[in-house]
């Protein structure tokens, strides 16, 4: 009964030979990869500065700055590689258009790249004050980096992406933070002592719980609006459920819970949880990108979404 009631209220009217109404986005692995790397780097930049302000262990701050800079340098490569006329990449900085999340993102990435690289370089040579000065804007820009890609997806006519503009950005933000925390766990655990392990662990647990709740909120919204079937039923949905929700949030939550219950932090378990979080965060972006492509091919999903103007 519940399952039946939860089926999407799908559009049952006529279609034009079941041909797509809107054009499928061209985005595939490179963009899914950027959604993952850019979000992770942005959140790492934010966490580094927060850790710095909280006077946390310097090694944690340093790792955050390095991860942010590395991600900020890898991101443009992924984006330029996805362009269909690559040598014109600089036209991305030709204008600034607030109605285009792509334009907002291009400028944000450029500024984040400059500030986070400066912060990392200053950190490397021990100029803590310079690193701090560059780290503040990098943190603000990093927060935008970790959520704007979801806004970019929402501001299209792709049914799966357009249906949940209030859920997708928080979900991307939570996932960006959990993957950044996982990267920091891996980066700091390789050294002796594993600084701030318990803070990373507790924060990771809270953010993973938030991510889990938001993943279910997305499913609920998609069901209510009767779109995004690719993420609810079929093979891609299985990958999303097992990869993004199971491996990405439930596994790390289980490990954290076990650590709290047994009362002793297990190094190997926390490393495994961090790896699982990273895998899950990547699967989340991949399934959303490819699920969006599938939903754009389905005229009934778009007609369902466009029955009433919102």
């Amino acid at each position, binding site marked *: 009964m519940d399952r039946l009631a939860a089926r999407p209220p799908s559009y049952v009217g006529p279609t*034009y030979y079941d041909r797509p109404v809107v054009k499928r986005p061209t*985005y595939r692995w490179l963009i899914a990869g950027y959604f993952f790397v850019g979000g992770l780097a942005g959140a790492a930049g934010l966490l580094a500065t927060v850790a710095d302000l909280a006077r946390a262990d310097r090694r944690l701050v340093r790792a955050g700055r390095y991860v942010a800079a590395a991600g900020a340098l890898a991101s443009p490569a992924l984006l330029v590689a996805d362009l269909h*006329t690559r040598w014109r990449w600089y036209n991305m900085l030709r204008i600034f258009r607030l109605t285009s999340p792509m334009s907002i993102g291009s400028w944000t990435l450029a500024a984040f790249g400059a500030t986070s690289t400066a912060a990392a370089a200053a950190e490397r040579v021990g100029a803590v004050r310079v690193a701090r000065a560059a780290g503040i804007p990098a943190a603000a820009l990093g927060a935008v980096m970790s959520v704007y890609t979801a806004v970019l997806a929402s501001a299209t006519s792709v049914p799966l992406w357009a249906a949940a503009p209030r859920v997708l950005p928080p979900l991307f933000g939570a996932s960006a933070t959990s993957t950044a925390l996982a990267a920091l766990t891996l980066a700091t655990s390789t050294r002796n002592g594993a600084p701030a392990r318990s803070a990373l662990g507790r924060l990771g647990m809270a953010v993973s719980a938030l991510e889990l709740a938001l993943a279910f909120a997305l499913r609920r919204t998609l069901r209510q609006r009767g779109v995004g079937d690719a993420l609810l039923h079929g093979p891609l949905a299985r990958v999303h459920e097992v990869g993004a929700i199971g491996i990405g949030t439930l596994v790390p939550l289980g490990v954290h819970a076990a650590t709290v219950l047994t009362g002793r932090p297990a190094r190997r378990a926390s490393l495994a949880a961090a790896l699982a979080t990273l895998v899950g965060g990547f699967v989340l972006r991949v399934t959303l990108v490819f699920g969006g492509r599938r939903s754009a091919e389905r005229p009934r999903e778009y007609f369902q979404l466009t029955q009433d103007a919102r």
Partner: protein
Amino acid sequence: MSVPPSGRVADESELTAGTRIEEGRRYGFFTDTTLCIGCKACEVACKEWNTLPADHVGLTGDSYDNTGALSATTWRHVAFVEQLGHDGDRPTTMPPWQSQWLMMSDVCKHCANAGCLDACPTGALFRTEFDTVVVQQDVCNGCGYCVPACPFGVVDLNEHDGKAHKCTLCYDRLKGGLEPACAKACPTDSIQFGELDDLHARARRRVDRLRAGGRSDAYLYGAPDGEGQPSPGATGGIGALNCFFLLTARPEVYNLPAAPSLPRTRIRPGLLHGLGTMAAIAAAALLAFATDRAG
């Protein structure tokens, strides 16, 4: 009017479409589907003028529509709908006006608020002095964001040249005082080019006449309905479609959305919710790192 020695008629559009083309005025198409005979002269004229290559030479099996859809190399697309019976049943009687063919020449809508133009990060997409929306080929870098942004699935990337393409409403012809190629070629005046206010008035008169003649299902898609209400197609912040249509069946029959919305309306709520979440996470992180140091 005699043809000048140069062979070029100034303001030719005045002769062929009854409209003088001047900068700063708004132009568009009124496509009256009740007059369309499905000859595809518009598709051919568009391809010829814009030197667009042939694509998909073959049969689709979808009535006489072997074009399929608008694309980077197809800027007019005639849709064919055979309304015979229901669920595959062949009818045994025909309605009094005999034909149940619906044909519609689809085209870029040149929206008053255009989703593609909003989305373009390079400024390649711009609004012309004729209130139309055009992609500048020497600026576009093929990021592809306009493609899923369009609420009507019009603009498309060409994989060969790596740029976005769509109908320009014959920007070059308008510059030279010529009526767009498709409208000029249309033998039944199903496609009418003109100034928008003029076209709206003409379209309303046409709807009134059709309704008086018994076609009570005639309505306009994408034009203001005269009472300030957005008509189907012009919803969700899109405002109006400079290229609008007269239809006699629900929009979905022609592969048009009933109530599309402008993608940019989702930016503000998205950013606010996303950044709000990040602020909360940052506060929690500050607390966690600070207490960790204390403990």
